[in-house]
């Protein structure tokens, strides 16, 4: 009887208690599982990247190293201008998404919630329409625009449409995470105009979502090929594709791809760093 009581008390005092040997064993197995998973996925993602980098550094003789392909980037015909256009397109698309979507979504959340479902449907629609269908629909419009010899920057219209679902989802998550209605009502009762409410109260509290939306938009613009190619506009991806057809410049293809990838990584790091700093300030 006494023994039963003692065992019972021990179990009640620390229900998670288990023999130390068992805990260590479990921890070891978990660590092993973690490392195996990381290694497999690491190899899966990084081996092609390493191969690409290695190829971009291939010398004239097999097995030697050379930075020639990297040095050729600026001198490859059309490549620099394609990079420039793509970056400009990313900036313009991000700016339009920011100006168009952020105030609209906040306004819908605060004032006209009944249209939120319709708005969500419209924003997510581009996900369901294949790029080729989108281009077929847009081609006549772009043909007309081209009469006025507009540059490849005209692509930002279609890129805004393509980026809508991703930007919407990110911003929507950000808005859901805060009590936008109460915050706006508190600000209004203190004398804030609607403009002030949006700019000084809601937007600062959804920075992380805005940064994520911009990151996704930039990534989409940097990687988009189909529409630019069909509409005969030379963006980075189209230029890379053109280089790939000229086999003599395969090294440049890989060095440029690596550079684009590194740029995207850098952008990701910068944006997440900015978001983390803002969060840390409040924590």
């Amino acid at each position, binding site marked *: 009887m006494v023994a039963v009581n003692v065992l019972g008390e021990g179990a009640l005092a620390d229900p998670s208690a288990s023999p130390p040997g068992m805990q260590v064993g479990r921890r070891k197995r978990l660590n092993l599982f973690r490392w195996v998973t990381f290694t497999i996925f690491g190899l899966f993602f990084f081996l092609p990247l390493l191969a690409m980098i290695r190829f971009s550094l291939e010398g004239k003789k097999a097995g030697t190293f050379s930075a020639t392909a990297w040095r050729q980037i600026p001198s490859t015909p059309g490549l620099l201008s394609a990079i420039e256009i793509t970056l400009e397109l990313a900036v313009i698309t991000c700016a339009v998404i920011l100006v168009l979507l952020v105030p609209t979504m906040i306004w819908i959340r605060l004032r006209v919630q009944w249209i939120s479902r319709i708005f969500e449907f419209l924003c997510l629609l581009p996900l369901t329409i294949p790029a080729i269908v989108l281009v077929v629909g847009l081609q006549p419009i772009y043909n007309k625009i081209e009469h006025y010899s507009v540059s490849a920057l005209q692509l930002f219209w279609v890129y805004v449409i393509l980026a809508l679902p991703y930007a919407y989802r990110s911003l929507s998550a950000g808005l859901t995470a805060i009590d936008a209605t109460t*915050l706006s009502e*508190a600000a209004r009762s*203190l004398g804030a105009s609607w403009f*002030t409410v949006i700019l000084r109260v809601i937007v600062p*509290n959804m920075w992380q979502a805005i940064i994520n939306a911009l990151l996704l938009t930039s990534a989409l613009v940097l990687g988009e090929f189909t529409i630019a190619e069909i509409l005969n506009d030379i963006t980075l991806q189209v230029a890379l594709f053109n280089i790939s057809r000229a086999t003599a410049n395969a090294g440049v293809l890989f060095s440029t791809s690596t550079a684009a990838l590194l740029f995207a990584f850098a952008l990701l790091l910068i944006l997440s760093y900015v978001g983390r700093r803002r969060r840390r300030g409040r924590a």
Partner: protein
Amino acid sequence: MEGLRRTYGQVVALDGLDLTLQPGELIALLGPSGCGKTTTLRLLAGLEDADGGTITVAGRDISHLSASKRDMGMVFQAYSLFPHMTVRQNVAFGLRLRRVSKEARDRRALEMLELVGLSAQADRYASQISGGQQQRVALARALAIEPKVLLLDEPLSALDAKVRAQLRDQIRRIQLELGITTLFVTHDQEEALAIADRVGVMREGRIEQLAPPTEVYSRPATSFVAEFVGLTNRLPGEVRNGRVSVRGCELPLVDAATPDGPAVALVRPEAVTLAVDEGQESGPLVGTVIAITFLGATSRVTVDLGSTTVMAQLPTADAAALAAGSQVTLTIRPDPVLVSVDKVAASEA
């Protein structure tokens, strides 16, 4: 507020509500969910538009003024501090919008934070302080702009009981200190009775009774008020010649003009006293104790009278002499009582 009316589709939230707040007065609006108390507050703040009626502050009609121009300080039920600002920035926000210089608004923000006892937390963010502290900061923020009327929308409901009582007393102290006209909305009757100069009990978009707390409790204007504010025993009886007879007890009526006939008398538990009487076998006011609920200084004793149960509120020391199953004789203090003469009540009789 005069003739305020607000509907949501088919639902009438406010049905021609009239309410006047005297300068420096604190009125608590009390009522069940959906009675229109929060709607009243939101209409006064300008956060919603009324379908009809007028709102006048110091002789000026503000019915069509936007919320940002009404100069109403408001504390919300949900935590409403701006998370990206420090406590000091939150309090100074309204002053910043009024283009008060940085030094002046910092000084005022600190004054307000001292008033609510939170000057030491001035540089913290909302996420770094407790719920009770957040509501105190929200109060300081609302007071910083020197509002014409302070609006409190169930600001204590998210807090635990102890903090709630402390903050309730602090709100009252500050309100009296600043002499600010205040409208306080709550569904907690204890809170309303403890804090207000006058309590307005609302039902279905109208105020049923607006009176000082003691009057609302001891002389409720309607059976709804009697039953909503405090506990009430519903005892079937018979009205005759301005008095009601309940199980042989003759009780005076609040409304002496009540027509004769069957009715239900609404009797407060504290008007019922008990005496242990094992010798008495039967009688209209003899019953058996079925439950004793300890409430602190007092205890609530439930007695089974056969066809009905009666609650009595006694000092805990007196209730200690009782036990479940013991036989007791009830005495009803002859305070004026309200009667309910609606069909359901009459059928009970």
